[in-house]
C-alpha cells in the first residue's frame, strides 16, 4: 500500500535547499519526499514552522560509559520517570536517560538522527546493543581510533597507507561511521596515570598527539569518507587551552578533503576555548576561536554549550574526568580499554553562581554568535557533558533572544561581565540559522545530506518537524516551549509525535561506512594487527568484529579509495 502524506501550508525552513521561511507544502510518499501526492493523509501546518528532522552531530547516548553513568547515578534515573504507555516503554533519567527515553525525547524535539560520538572499538557491540533499544532515531556511531597502538605505530613509522588500511578495517569491524579522536595520546598516557599536551611524546610510543591528529586526517582523506576526522583535542577543560585548540586546527590545514567539507570537525568547542592560567583568572577565548573559524575553511565545530544544572560528564578523555573528580570530590568511574582508549565519568553541577561555570555558559553561546557563518557550527551540548540534550531548546531561545541572554546574565555571577563577551553581543539568530545549526550543517558535515538526511528536497527522507510556533514569535519562553515538544514529528513519513506525545516508535536505521581498501595493503596491515591479537588483546581476532546481528537495520555507505 502506498502511504502518502501532505503537510500543507507550513512555513518551511530547509536551508540545504535554500528554502528560508517559505510557505509551501511537503509531500511524502513511502517515506520519501516527493514532488506531489494524489491521495494523501493531510496535516494542516497552517503558518507553523516546518523544518527537516533534526540531526545531532555529537551526543553520548549509547554504550559502555553512558551505561556506567546510568548505573552509578540512580539519583539521576529518578528524575525522568514516566510510566509505560501503549506505545512507549518505561522511561527514566535526566542527564543519563534510559535508551527508550532517549529516543522519545529527541523525537519530541523534532530530531530524527543522532550520532553517538564515541564508541570504544573493543566494546562496539555494547554501543550497538543499546542503539537497537533507542526507538525512532536513525543513528550512527564514531569508533575511537586515535589512542590505538596500531595507529600510533603507523604514525611513528609514517606509513599513512597502512594507517588508512587499519582505519578501514576498524570502521568496518565496529560498524562505525568515521574516525573519532579523543585526547590523542593522552588517553594512552592515562593508562599510566599521565596525560599529554599536544606536543608531548606519548609514553613508550614516541609520537606526539599532533602527529597522531595529522596522520589520522591524512589517512582518513585517502577514502571518500562522508565525514572528516572528528576531534576532541588535547587539554580539554584546562584554563588557557585555546592556543592548543587553534594549534590543533592548524595541523590539518594543508590536507585536501575528499569533497567540499572541512578536514576536521572539532567537537564541543566550548570546552576548548579557555583563556587564563588558573581557575582564578579563567576567561573566555571564544573570540579567538571564532576568529580562527571565520578566517579558515578547513574546520567545522559544534558548540558543547552549557545547560545550567546537574549533569553527568563522560568522555574517553580519562585524565580530564580524573581532574574534574579531584575538583568536585564526587564519585568517579574510570574504564581504560586495552590497546585502544579509555573513559571516565563523574557527575557535575553547572551553577550560575560560580564564576567559571558562568563563563563556560557564556562561551558556548559566544561561539555561536561570533562565528559569522552558521554553516560552520552545529548546536550541541556534548550531551550529557555540558548538559543534557533536552536543554537544546534553552540554547535556541538564548541564541534567538538578546533579551533572554541579558536577563539570564543578571542572575548569574558577575564574572560574565568581566571575563566573557556575551553581554556585549547583540546578534540574534533567526529561524533559518537555527535550522542550519540543528540540521543542515550537521547533515552536510556528516555527508548525510546525500543520504536523505537534514533536508526536504525531493528524494530526501520524510523526516519532518512541525513546531507549534509562528515565524514571527519573538518571546523566548514560547520559542523554547515550541522546540521542546513538536506539534508533529514525522519520521520516514510516519507520524511519531503528535502534540508533544509519542504516538509511534518505529526502529531507526544504523548508518555505517565501509571504507574500501586495496587488499594488498590490508594484507600487510593484517600481519601487524594479528600480532596484536595474538599477544596483547584479551579477545581473539575472530571474536572481535561486530557481527551483523547487532545491526538489524543497516544502511551502508561505501567509501572508495580516492584515485
Amino acid at each position, binding site marked *: 500500500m502506498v502511504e502518502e502524506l501532505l503537510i500543507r501550508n507550513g512555513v518551511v525552513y530547509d536551508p540545504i535547499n535554500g528554502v528560508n521561511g517559505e510557505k509551501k507544502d511537503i509531500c511524502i510518499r513511502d517515506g520519501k519526499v516527493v514532488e506531489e501526492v494524489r491521495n494523501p493523509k493531510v496535516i494542516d501546518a497552517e503558518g507553523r514552522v516546518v523544518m527537516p528532522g533534526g540531526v545531532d552531530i555529537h551526543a553520548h547516548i549509547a554504550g559502555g560509559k553512558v551505561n556506567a553513568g546510568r548505573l552509578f547515578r540512580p539519583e539521576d534515573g529518578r528524575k525522568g520517570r514516566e510510566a509505560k504507555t501503549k506505545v512507549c516503554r518505561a522511561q527514566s533519567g535526566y542527564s543519563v536517560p534510559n535508551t527508550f527515553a532517549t529516543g522519545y525525547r529527541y523525537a519530541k524535539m523534532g530530531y530524527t538522527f543522532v550520532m553517538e560520538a564515541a564508541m570504544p572499538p573493543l566494546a562496539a557491540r555494547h554501543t550497538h546493543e*543499546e542503539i537497537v533499544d533507542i526507538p525512532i532515531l536513525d543513528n550512527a556511531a564514531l569508533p575511537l581510533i586515535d589512542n590505538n597502538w596500531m595507529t600510533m605505530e603507523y604514525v611513528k613509522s609514517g606509513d599513512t597507507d597502512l594507517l588508512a588500511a587499519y582505519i578501514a578495517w576498524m570502521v568496518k569491524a565496529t560498524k562505525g561511521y568515521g574516525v573519532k579522536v579523543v585526547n590523542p595520546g593522552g588517553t594512552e598516557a592515562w593508562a599510566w596515570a599521565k596525560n599529554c599536551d599536544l606536543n608531548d611524546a606519548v609514553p613508550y610510543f614516541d609520537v606526539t598527539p599532533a602527529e597522531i591528529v595529522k596522520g589520522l586526517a591524512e589517512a582518513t582523506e585517502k577514502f571518500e569518507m562522508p565525514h572528516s576526522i572528528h576531534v576532541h583535542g588535547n587539554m580539554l577543560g584546562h584554563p588557557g587551552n585555546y592556543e592548543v585548540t587553534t594549534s590543533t586546527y592548524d595541523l590539518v590545514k594543508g590536507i585536501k578533503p575528499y569533497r567540499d567539507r572541512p578536514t576536521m570537525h572539532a567537537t564541543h568547542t566550548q570546552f576548548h576555548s579557555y583563556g587564563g592560567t588558573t581557575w582564578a583568572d579563567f576567561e573566555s577565548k571564544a573570540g579567538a576561536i571564532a576568529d580562527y573559524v571565520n578566517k579558515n575553511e578547513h574546520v567545522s565545530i559544534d558548540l558543547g554549550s552549557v545547560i545550567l544544572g546537574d549533569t553527568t560528564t563522560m568522555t574517553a578523555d580519562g585524565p580530564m574526568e580524573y581532574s574534574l573528580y579531584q575538583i568536585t570530590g564526587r564519585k568517579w568511574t*574510570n574504564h*581504560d580499554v586495552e590497546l585502544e582508549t579509555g573513559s571516565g565519568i563523574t557527575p557535575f553541577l553547572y551553577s550560575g553562581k560560580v564564576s567559571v561555570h558562568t563563563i563556560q555558559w557564556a562561551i558556548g553561546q559566544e561561539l555561536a554568535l561570533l562565528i559569522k557563518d552558521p554553516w560552520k557550527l552545529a548546536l550541541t551540548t556534548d550531551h550529557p557533558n555540558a548538559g543534557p540534550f533536552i536543554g537544546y531548546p534553552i540554547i535556541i531561545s538564548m541564541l534567538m533572544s538578546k533579551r533572554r541572554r541579558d536577563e539570564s546574565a543578571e542572575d548569574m555571577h558577575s564574572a560574565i561581565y568581566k571575563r566573557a563577551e556575551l553581554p556585549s553581543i547583540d546578534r540574534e539568530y533567526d529561524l533559518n540559522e537555527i535550522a542550519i545549526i540543528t540540521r543542515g550543517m550537521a547533515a552536510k558535515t556528516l555527508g548525510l545530506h546525500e543520504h536523505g538526511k537534514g533536508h526536504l528536497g525531493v528524494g530526501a527522507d520524510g523526516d519532518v518537524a512541525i513546531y507549534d510556533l509562528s515565524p514571527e514569535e519573538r518571546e523566548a519562553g514560547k520559542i523554547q516551549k515550541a522546540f521542546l515538544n513538536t506539534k508533529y514529528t514525522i519520521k520516514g513519513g510516519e507520524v511519531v509525535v503528535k502534540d508533544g506525545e509519542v504516538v509511534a516508535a518505529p526502529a531507526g536505521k544504523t548508518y555505517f561506512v565501509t571504507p574500501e581498501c586495496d587488499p594488498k595493503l590490508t594484507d600487510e596491515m593484517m600481519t601487524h594487527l594479528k600480532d596484536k591479537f595474538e599477544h596483547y588483546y584479551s579477545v581473539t581476532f575472530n571474536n572481535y568484529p561486530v557481527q551483523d546481528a547487532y545491526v538489524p537495520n543497516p544502511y551502508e555507505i561505501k567509501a572508495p579509495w580516492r584515485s
Partner: protein
Amino acid sequence: MVEITDVVCSLCGCVCDDIVVEVEDNNVTKVKKGACSVGKSKLMGHGRIESPAIRENGSLKDCSYDDAIKKAAEILAAARRPLLYGWSSTVCEADKVGVELAEEIGAVIDNTASVCHGPSVLAIQDVGLPSCTLGEVKNRADLIIYWGANPAAAHANHMKRYSYITKGYWTAEGKKNKKLIVVDVRRTATAKMADVFLQIEQGKDYLVFSALRAMLYGYEDVVPEVVGGVSKKDLLETVRMMKEAKFGIIFFGMGVTHTGARHNNIVNAIQTTRAAHTHTKFNIMPMRGHYNVAGINQVCTWETGYPFAVDLSRGYAWYNPGEHSATDLLIRRECDVALFIASDPGAHFPGESIRHLAKIPVIQIDPFPNPTTEFADVVIPAAISGIEAEGNVYRMDNIPIRLRKLVDTEYMADEEILERILGEVRAIKEKEGE
C-alpha cells in the same frame, strides 16, 4: 568431525573466547584447547532437563512446550506481585525480553547480582569504580591483588589469561616481574602462589582497607600495631608495594561483598584504590561469577535505568535494593508468583524465602535441573547458550562477546521461550479487555 575455533565459554565471568572444540554427530566430542576443567565439563555436556513439565498432584508431568508456555503465561498474567529472577546465565537478547515481560505484567525483575555483587553495585553508586579491561591488566599490571577471591578454584583461567601468569606488552616476562598479593581468611590455593599473603581475621576487611588507605594518604601514625590480624609491618610492606607498582589492580570477590560491613567494604576498597591512584595507576574490579551477570546488569540499566532489584509495578522503574530485591520480597511473603531463569535460588536463597517459594506458583526456565526444579510448578527446558544458542554476553570487565552456537538442538532458546510467554500474556490481557 568438525573443529570449531574461537569458541566462547559460557561458564564464569572470565568468558574465555579462545577455546577449540571438536564436534561430531552434533555433539561436542572433545575440548582441545583453552577451557579450564569446569568450562570443559560444561562444553562436553551433562544431565539436562529433558522435557517441559507441569506439576500435578505433587509431581512433575512431562508436557509439550506449548502447554508449558501457556501455563506459565496464565500464571504470570494472573499474578499480582510477580518476581522475575535470574538472568545471569543466559544471553542479553533473552534478558531484554525479560525486562519487557516485567514491564508488561508490572513485575519486580531482579538478577543474581542481588545475592552476589549487589553490594559492589551499591558501592559503585556511592563512589564510582576506577577500573579497566582485563587486557589492560594483562599488558601492564605489575602488582595484582586478589582480595576475598580464590581464582585458582573459582575462575580457573583468570590468572593464566588476564593477570598474574599471562604475558603482555610491558609484562613480557610473565610473573617474573610481577607481584601477587592475596588477602583472605584462609590459605587458599591462590594464596599459596602469592608473594605476600595477608591472612586477615574473618570480617575484618573494612579495618584492613582503612589501615591501608590511611597509610597511602600518609597517616601511618594512626595505624595500630595489628589490624584485623595483620601486623603493621606487613601492612607497610603492602603499601610500599602498592606505591612502587607501575600499574596495580585489586580483584575482589564474595569474601569482601558478603562479610561484615558488606557494601561498605567495597566502598572502602574503592577508596583505597583511589588513595593508591594518588601515587600510581591503580584499578579495581569485581570478580563476577556467572558468565553474563555483568550483562544483565548492563541490559537492565540501559532499559530501566537501574542494574538490579527493579520494581516495575508502577509502570515505571522503581529501584530500592533491600526493599524489592528477590530475597527481601520472598521473606516478606510479598510476591505471589516467581519465574526463575538461568539461576538456582533453590540452592542459594535463605531458607525462609524458599519456604515462601514452596507456597506460590514457580516457573523455571533452565537447561539444567537443580534444587529449584524440585519445587517448580512449570519447568521449561532451554537450549544451552554458548553451545546450542548464540547471543551476547558481558565479561566481568564489561567487554561484550558473542557466544557461538556449536551444535543444533530441539530445545528452544531462552529468548524464544520468553517471547512466546510474552505473546501469550499479551493475548490473555487483550482478551480480558485491558
